[in-house]
Every structure is written in structure tokens, then in C-alpha cells.
């Protein structure tokens, strides 16, 4: 069935919401407008206050040492000990704010919103959550350093970069996972037999379950455990107890933590060649059909429908497999998948995309510091804090609760009150919503009692809530 390719769907469903003039610019070639965004290197995110993850972690290692000293010197409960505990959040919070502010600015202003959407999709796919303090300072750098430069590359390259990024290793505890027969285990075991060290299977499990194959795709507990052994030694440089290697804060393969020996994962034998053993497993996992299917399902759910048609998933999965995981090919397949341009609008905007589309539509400036970020917290989607490695959920039911809707409306009203006097809602409505604008909404806006109220109604309209 031929579907109408409309500029409003291109800007909203595949983008971050139209700015005034965008729909006219897109004109009658919405697919072309989206495709051209996939050409050329992804723009880097640059802003004052952004620092490398290596730099941040190296500094945090120093702070951690200070905290340990303070704890030893002060008795528990002493003011000095209490103050020491707050040192890490104090170091990390300004870094977090700088990261999310830069990200918000980019989303609100970018001319390549489709690219930004896929970037944010991958960040949520490879989720870390800042409710774990250890990653508060580096969650943004995971996106900036590992994901953003690779969203137009190959899936395998993206996967390897993420799994070796210090933020991911910290979040899922792999930096301290120790092979039970490793040199480190032998040394520690001699010194303190009561506290044997061993593996932590967190990262290995979530790679298989959440990052690649998907749960229920056939891997076993033994595969998880063995894979965890394979990636022992994937760690972070600097001091670690009595061991010290690598540049502080950077990914390092610590051979002394690595579980020796060949290993069988998913039926295939991998010789022990150090770091390459884990990389080989990741490459093979990335190329499995289950991975293509899992990624395609999540992409279709994110962009097209809560329950995408099997044909759409197959279409995108085929593109993934036949291109060997070439991501631009995969995104292009998304644009031609069955249902990609379907009406009526079925996806409910996430709180984050609701806020960003408001800022784009009204051309609001993103201010400095915490003030600009309060909206994300109030509407229930504080950046980089999905609370679990599964990332934020992606169905309408996950976001359209009664209380959530009320907060969205209250926030829309606050925006309307603040800038309504300087925006003309009746003129903006067709600029932002194009063919999606309903007669009901037009009428409500035209009959509004005041300019702020008119703007509130535009932002609260069903077709602005959805995409």
C-alpha cells in the first residue's frame, strides 16, 4: 500500500520535532531530507566543561584514595568521614550537568535530528544509569566518546567501543571481575584465603541479553558464565589494589586478572589470546541472526510502533544481516519498512522528546546549569538515569500514565505562561504539525482566551503528544 510520505511525519516521527520553517524546507522529499542526514561524519559534541572519561576517572581515583585515608583517620560518623563520602558526587555533578546541558543544546538546535535520534537510541540501548554514583561523571562521555562517533559506522565497531568504555565497565562491574585461576587470584588467595576473588557476570549477561542476542535467543547460563571469564581483565587503568597498569582512567586489558585457557561460548571454541578472545566472541555474537532480529525489533519499536509488524522487523533485520551490520543501511531500511509512514500517529512521545520538541518548536534557548534540566526530572525522564541497564522503556503505556500526562500539561502551561506573549500559537501550529494538525486543535487555539493559553493548548494537543 502506498503511504503518504509527509514532512510532518519525517520531522516528528524520525526527528525531534519541527522548528518553524522546517516543514517548508523538507517540502515534498521527506525521505531525501532524512537520508541526507546520514551523510558525512557525525558532528562532535563540544562545549565548555566537557572532559574525557579518562581524565575524570583518573581524578576520581585520586579522590577515592583521599576518601579511604579520611576514613582511616576519622572514626565512623565523624564529620570528616561524612564529608569525604560526598566528595565523589561533588566532583561528578558539575560534569554531569555540563554533559546533559550540551546534549540538550545539540538536540534543540541540530539540523540533523534523525542522526541525533539514532544516537540517543543507541545510548538507551547501551544504557548506563547515573543512580550509580560511579558513572554520574562519565555517563555523558560514554555517549560522546564511544557512541556518537560510531553511529554511522558498523554495529560491531560500536559494540566493541561501548563494551570497552570505562563507563560501561564501571556500571556493570567488569573492571573488578577476576578470573578464579588468574595470577591475581593466586596472589590474593595467598594473602587472604578468606576473601577469594572471582568473576562478576553482570556485564557478560547484559551484553548477551540487552546489547546483542536478546533474552530467550538460546544462550545458556553456562554461556554467560564462560563469557564472563573470557572478558575478565577488561578493566580500567591505574591503581587497583596492589596491581597497577595502563594509563589511569583508560580502558586496559589487565592480563593478571584474565582467566586463562581456551573457552567455548555458544558452541564455538576460542583460544586464549588475551584481549582478542573477548573481541572475537563479541564479533561473532554481533553477526548472529538473533542480534539482527533483536536490534531490528528495538529500532522498529522506537521509531514506528509499539508492536511493529513482523514484516517491518524482518525488513530491517535483513538489511542488518545483508550489510554486515552497516548502520546507515539499517536506518535507511527503517524508512522503507512497512508502516513507517502510517497514520494515525501511534507512538507517544517520551518525556525527553516532548521537551526537546517544545524547545525546537518554540525556538527556546537552553539556559545554563540545573534550571534547564529540571523539566526532564519533573516529567519523569532525568537524562542518563533509566534506573537499569535495560534503558528507558519504549511503549506508549510506559509513558502515558494519568499522573505523567498531568505533569506534561502543567509543564506546557508553565511554558505557555512564560513565553506565550511572544509566540503566536495559531501561526505556529501548522509550522510544527503540518498535515497532522487537527481541526479541533486549530479551533481550540483560535478561540483561546489569551496568547499564553493558546500556546498551552498547542503543546497539550494530542497531535503534539504523539508522533
Amino acid at each position, binding site marked *: 500500500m502506498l503511504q503518504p510520505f509527509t514532512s510532518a511525519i519525517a520531522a516528528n516521527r524520525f526527528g525531534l520535532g519541527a522548528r518553524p520553517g522546517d516543514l517548508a524546507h523538507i517540502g515534498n522529499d521527506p525521505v531525501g531530507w532524512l537520508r541526507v542526514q546520514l551523510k558525512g561524519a557525525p558532528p562532535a559534541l563540544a562545549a565548555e566543561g566537557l572532559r574525557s572519561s579518562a581524565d575524570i576517572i583518573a581524578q576520581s581515583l585520586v579522590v577515592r584514595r583521599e576518601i579511604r585515608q579520611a576514613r582511616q583517620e576519622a572514626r565512623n560518623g565523624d564529620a570528616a568521614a561524612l564529608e569525604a563520602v560526598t566528595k565523589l558526587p561533588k566532583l561528578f555533578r558539575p560534569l554531569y550537568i555540563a554533559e546533559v546541558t550540551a546534549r540538550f543544546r545539540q538536540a534543540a538546535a541540530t539540523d540533523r535530528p534523525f542522526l541525533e535520534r539514532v544516537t540517543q537510541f543507541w545510548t538507551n540501548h547501551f544504557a548506563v544509569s547515573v*543512580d550509580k554514583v560511579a558513572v554520574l561523571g562519565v555517563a555523558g562521555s560514554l555517549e560522546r566518546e564511544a557512541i556518537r562517533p560510531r553511529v554511522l559506522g558498523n554495529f560491531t565497531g560500536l559494540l566493541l567501543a561501548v563494551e570497552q568504555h570505562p563507563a560501561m565497565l564501571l556500571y556493570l562491574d567488569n573492571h573488578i571481575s577476576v578470573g578464579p585461576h588468574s595470577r591475581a587470584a593466586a596472589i590474593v588467595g595467598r594473602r587472604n584465603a578468606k576473601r577469594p576473588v572471582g568473576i562478576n*557476570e553482570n556485564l557478560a549477561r547484559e551484553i548477551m541479553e540487552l546489547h546483542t542476542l536478546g533474552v*530467550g535467543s538460546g544462550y545458556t547460563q553456562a554461556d554467560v558464565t564462560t563469557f564472563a571469564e573470557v572478558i575478565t581483565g577488561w578493566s580500567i587503568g591505574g591503581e587497583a589494589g596492589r596491581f597497577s597498569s595502563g594509563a589511569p582512567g583508560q580502558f586496559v586489558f589487565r592480563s593478571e586478572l584474565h582467566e586463562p585457557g581456551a573457552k567455548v561460548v555458544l558452541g564455538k571454541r576460542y583460544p586464549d589470546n588475551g584481549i582478542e578472545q573477548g573481541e572475537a566472541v563479541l564479533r561473532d555474537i554481533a553477526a548472529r541472526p538473533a542480534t539482527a532480529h533483536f536490534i531490528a525489533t528495538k529500532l522498529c519499536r522506537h521509531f514506528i510502533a509499539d508492536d511493529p509488524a513482523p514484516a517491518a522487523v524482518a525488513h530491517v533485520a535483513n538489511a542488518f544481516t545483508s550489510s554486515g551490520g552497516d548502520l546507515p543501511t539499517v536506518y535507511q531500511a527503517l524508512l522503507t519498512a512497512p508502516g513507517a509512514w502510517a497514520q494515525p500517529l501511534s507512538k507517544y512521545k517520551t518525556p525527553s522528546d516532548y521537551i526537546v520538541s517544545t524547545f525546537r518548536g518554540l525556538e527556546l534557548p537552553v539556559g545554563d546549569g540545573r534550571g534547564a534540566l529540571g523539566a526532564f526530572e519533573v516529567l519523569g525522564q532525568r537524562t542518563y538515569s533509566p534506573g537499569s541497564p535495560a534503558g528507558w522503556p519504549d511503549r506508549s503505556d510506559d*509513558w502515558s500514565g494519568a499522573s505523567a500526562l498531568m505533569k506534561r*500539561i502543567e509543564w506546557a*502551561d508553565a511554558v505557555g505562561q512564560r513565553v506565550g506573549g511572544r509566540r503566536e500559537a495559531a501561526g505556529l501550529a501548522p509550522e510544527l504539525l503540518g498535515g497532522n494538525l487537527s481541526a479541533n486543535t486549530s479551533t481550540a487555539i483560535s478561540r483561546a482566551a489569551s496568547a499564553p493559553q493558546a500556546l498551552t493548548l498547542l503543546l497539550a494537543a*494530542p497531535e503534539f503528544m504523539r508522533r
Partner: protein
Amino acid sequence: MQSFGRRRFIRSGAWALGATLVTSGVSFARADADTKSRFVFVILRGALDGLAVVPPYGDPDYASLRRDLALHAPGSAGGVLPLSNPFGLHPSCQFLHECFTARELVVFHAISSPYRERSHFDGQDVLENGTVRPHAVQTGWLNRALAAMPVRGGAERERGVALGQNVPLVMRGPAAVTSWSPSKLAALDDDTLQRITDLYASDPLLAKRLADALAADEIAASSQAMAQGGTRYGEVINAAAGFLRREDGPQVAVFDTIGWDTHANEGSAEGQLAGRLAALDAGLRTLKEQLGPVWKDTAVVLATEFGRTVAVNGTRGTDHGTGAAAFLLGGAVRGGRVLADWPGLSARALYQGRDLQPTLDLRAVLKGVLQEHLLVPYDAVESSVFPDSARAKALKGLIRT
């Protein structure tokens, strides 16, 4: 599903257990139970370590397997709070222990949903959807139970409330429910609100959600007047109590807690998990205080998606496991007991050589509570609420009659 045939229940208090524990479709109707009973379901997301919160300190294998994480016997510094041998309660759980002493708490151990893999997200899905498979349905067992409850008073009303911006899966489904969470935003003026209501007239989903939100705000506003806050869960628990105290309000409330996924540096008597348990315990105390006279009609279930490994992992934490602990507390509960068909922690007793073997199906507890406390009809409990659960027979006698 493995068999629950080998029954060796730990006995405590004066309650005879064993064979009489299991029931089929008997009605336990109290005259006014269908209007007065209140139920709270607390989801502990992330897999709470049952061996930490309800340590089997008397089990011969416990201390050697748990090493640094092991808690000491009652009476020693940082020691557990005594339940019935071999079980204790984590020292952070002072309020829960008071409930146990007051016979208002039943502790379940070696318990699990029918889920036997180790994915948080699938595990939580099964915990909430009430079937035996993840993603089998898009509705939750608690909502389906609400839909099956006898309608009282005739008028259509919200039967459940989710404390949070959105409704978790366990409460999604055919029965009308609402959600509430604290707001820092200014309220809308009536005229704007009316216009938005009109704008949503042709959009059934948004119209319904907005109407629910307005009703919930009204109830919460009246309850916040007496709110004290202070604890991590204070504000939502005050609100929950506000909803449940109302005679014509919802009978069922649900709220989420996160932070139980203790892969590293879990701690023992003190530490990461101890702090979270203390906050939860304080929240439950607030719930009792805020419910006031309604507490005597209340039952609260705390459940998690699965347990954690018996042995400590390489990073002083525990990985995803199977058998877990769960709690049933409240003034309506016949408590003061630990119900567990304790499989032990010896190497051969462990599930797949690493996890606590589950010997009690969580659905048996939930089915018992739904029937005895909320008077959900037996047929509905066995078919629409918990399909394919015939082998998990409802536990009898969990609720005071």
C-alpha cells in the same frame, strides 16, 4: 516447574502448618471485607537478595558460603533480628521485626515466581503479568484480579492506584486504575483545564488519563496536609495512605522500589544494601502510621523478580539467582511466622549448583491473599488472574478472619 512435593515447613508460633496449608476453592467471606480490605503491592525491582534480608544464620552452610556478607547470630554486634531458627531478619528491618513480634508479618523464603531464567526484565515481566512466560500478555495479575472483584456501590470508580507517574504492568488491564506522583509544578487554572478537557474529547486515551489525574490529585491533596515526609519513600507512601484511607477510594495501591541489584560491594550489617533496607523499612513504618485505623484492614506484599546467588561473587556482591524471600504484612495478616520448605544450602541442595532452590511458588501466596483478603472469586483467581497455576495451590490462613 519443579515439584513442591517434599514439604518440610519450618514451624513457628502456634500455627499448625503442613498439609492444611493448601486449600482449594473455599470462601472466607467476612461481611464487610469486600469494602474495607486494602492491599498494597510493593515491587522490589532488581532482585533483592533473600539470603541477606532473611539470613538463614542457623543453616550449617550459610556462614561459609556468604563469607564477608554473612550476618551474625542475634545478640552479637550487628547481629540479625531473631525470627524462628534458622532464620533471622536483617538488622536494618526494625519495623518488620516489630510486625513479626506483633504477629502481623509472614516471611516467605525459598520462594519464586514460575520464571527460571535470570533476566531482570523478563523476571519482572512474569512477576507482574501473572502467567508462566515473559511477555505472554500485556496486562497484570493485579489488574485482572480487580476486574474480577465484585462491584460495590454500583458506580464505576478507580479500584487501584499506582504511586508513580505511570502504571506498572502489574496494574495494567481492563479495570480502571489511576496513577499519582508528587508535582512541583503549578496547577492549571480551571479555564485552561476545561479547554484541554474539551480538546481531548475526541481522544479516548488522553481523555481518560486526564480525568483520572484530576481525580487522583484531589485525593492526594487532602492527604498531603498530614504528610511528614522525611524518608526516601515518604511522599509516595503518604499519598498511598491518603488514597487507601478513603472509604470510597481505591482498595489497592502499587509502588515500585529500585536499587536491589547488588552485584558489587553489597555489604552486610552495614553498607549499601543495609541502607536501602533501612529506607524501605522506614517507609513501611510510615505507611502503618499514616493508615491509622485502616492498617487493621490492610495487607502488604513485598516481592522481587528472583533471588541472588548463594555464594558471594568476585566483587563482594551476588549475581542473579533463583529462590528469594518475600513478605506479607499488615493488620489483616495472620503473622508471626516464617513459611518456608527450607531446602538448605548444601551443594547438592542448590538449584543448578548455585542458587537457592525455590520450594514455594509466589503465586500460592498471592492467590491466597486475593481470595481471603480481597475476596476475588476462586474461579477468576485460577483462570484469568493466574492462568496455568493449578499446581501453585492457594495458601490458606494468611489473613485474619
